[in-house]
C-alpha cells in the first residue's frame, strides 16, 4: 500500500555495494494525483536531505523494478510510472546517511499536454512539491535511518 505523503517512509534506507560499503541511500516517491506519468513526461528537481540537494546527475530512478538514469527516461513515452506504485530514487552519496533523524524533501512532477505548454517544468530553486508546483504537505518528512 502507498502512504498518503509524496515522500514515502517505506524504503528509506542506505544502499550498499558488494563490499558492504554504503554508497548512498534510497527514498520512495509517489504521485499524489489521478494519473501516473509516462516516463518521458516525468520531471525531477531534487531530493534534499538536511539542506543538501541531490540533483538528477546523482540519482537513478527505479520504476517497476527497472532502474533508469534521468536521461534515459526522456525517450520512454510508452513506459508508465504507475499511479499505484512508488518510484524508488537511488541517490549516490559515499558513506550514505548517518544513523538518526533526517529532514527529507523532494521536488518532482510531470508535464501534461492538456495544460498549457511550460506548466509542470521544474526549476531546482523551487520549494519541495509534486506535479511541478510547490505544495506544503507530504513532500517534506522527518525520517529516521536505522
Amino acid at each position, binding site marked *: 500500500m502507498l502512504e*498518503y505523503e509524496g515522500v514515502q517512509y517505506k524504503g528509506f534506507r542506505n544502499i550498499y555495494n558488494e563490499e558492504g560499503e554504503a554508497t548512498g541511500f534510497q527514498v520512495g516517491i509517489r504521485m499524489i494525483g*489521478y494519473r*501516473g506519468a509516462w516516463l518521458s513526461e516525468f520531471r525531477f528537481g531534487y531530493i534534499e536531505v538536511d539542506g543538501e540537494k541531490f540533483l538528477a546527475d546523482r540519482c537513478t530512478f527505479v520504476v517497476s523494478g527497472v532502474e533508469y538514469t534521468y536521461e534515459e527516461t526522456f*525517450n520512454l*513515452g510508452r513506459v508508465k510510472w*504507475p*499511479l499505484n506504485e512508488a518510484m524508488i530514487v537511488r541517490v549516490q552519496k559515499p558513506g550514505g546517511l548517518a544513523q538518526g533523524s533526517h529532514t527529507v524533501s523532494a521536488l518532482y512532477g510531470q508535464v501534461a499536454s492538456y495544460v498549457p*505548454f511550460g506548466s509542470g517544468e521544474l526549476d531546482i530553486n523551487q520549494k519541495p512539491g509534486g506535479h511541478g508546483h510547490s505544495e506544503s504537505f507530504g513532500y517534506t518528512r522527518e525520517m529516521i535511518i536505522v
Partner: protein
Amino acid sequence: MSEERKVPKRGISTYCFYPQLGVNMDLEDIFMHMQDMGATGLEILADGIIPGYPYPSEEWLNKWFGLIKKYDIVPVEYGHWVESRLYPGQREASLEESLEQLIRDIKLAHYLGFTCMRTKLGVISETLDPVSNWREIIHEALPYAEAFNVVMQPEIHAPTKLTDRMVNDYVEFIEKENTKYFGFNIDFGVFQNKPVPEMARFFREDRVSKPEDIIPLLPYVHCCHAKYYNMSADFEETTIPYREVIQIMIEHGWDGYLLSEYEGPHKEDINHCIEQVRRHHVFMKKILGQ
C-alpha cells in the same frame, strides 16, 4: 401507459477520492459507496485505476467484471488523455502518435464496457485551445469509435465558456461529420458563479457561463461532470446554480449521467470526501424529485 419522464441519471467519478486510492481506499470501496447512494454510473480515470495501464492483466480484468456485476455498476465514462507533448521539446504530436494513443484507449474502454470517453486532447494556448490537428485526429479515430461503440468527448471545463469559439468549432465539426461518436462532457464548473472561499484565487468572474447556454449543446452531451466544490450541511452546493441547469436538462428530456466530481478543498481527509459526495447525492435526488 404514460411515457416515462426522462431525467438525468446519477453517478460518480473516481476523481472524488483520487488521493486516497491505494492508500485508504480501493475501487471496490468506491463501488460500495455508489451502491449505498443508488448512484450507478461510473467514470474512471483509466490511467490511475487500471493497474498496469494500458495493459491490464487477465487477473485484474476478471476482477473488474466481477465487481461491475456484484455492485450493479454502469461503466459510463472512461477518462483518458491524448498526449501531444510526450517528449521534451515536442510541441505537437504527429497524427500517428496521437492515433496510437486514442485507438488504444477506444479499444480498452469498449472492452471494459464503457460507452463514453472523456477525451483530453493536448492544448496549445492558455485558453486551452486544442492541438491544431484535432480535426484530423478525431476524423481518423471516428471509424474506430463507431466500430467499438464509444463516444469521444472533450470536457468543456472552466475557464472555457460554453459560448466560446472553441465549443462552436466542435459543434460545426460534429455537424459536418454527421456523427454520434463525438460530443461533449460539460463540467458544471463552467456555471460556477461564486468563489469557493479557500480557492478564491482560481475563480474567474469573467468566465461564467449561463445555465441556458447549455441548451444548444445538449443534443451532443452524453454525460456531465457534476462538479461540486462545497456541499453545505443542509445539502446545497453553494457556488454553482445546479437547480437552473438541471431544470433545463429535465425540460429538454436529457437523460444522460451526472457524474459527481469533487474539486473542493480537503481531499486529504477521507471522511470529508465521503460526506461531501453523500451530501451531493442527497442534493441531486432532491432536485430530481427522487
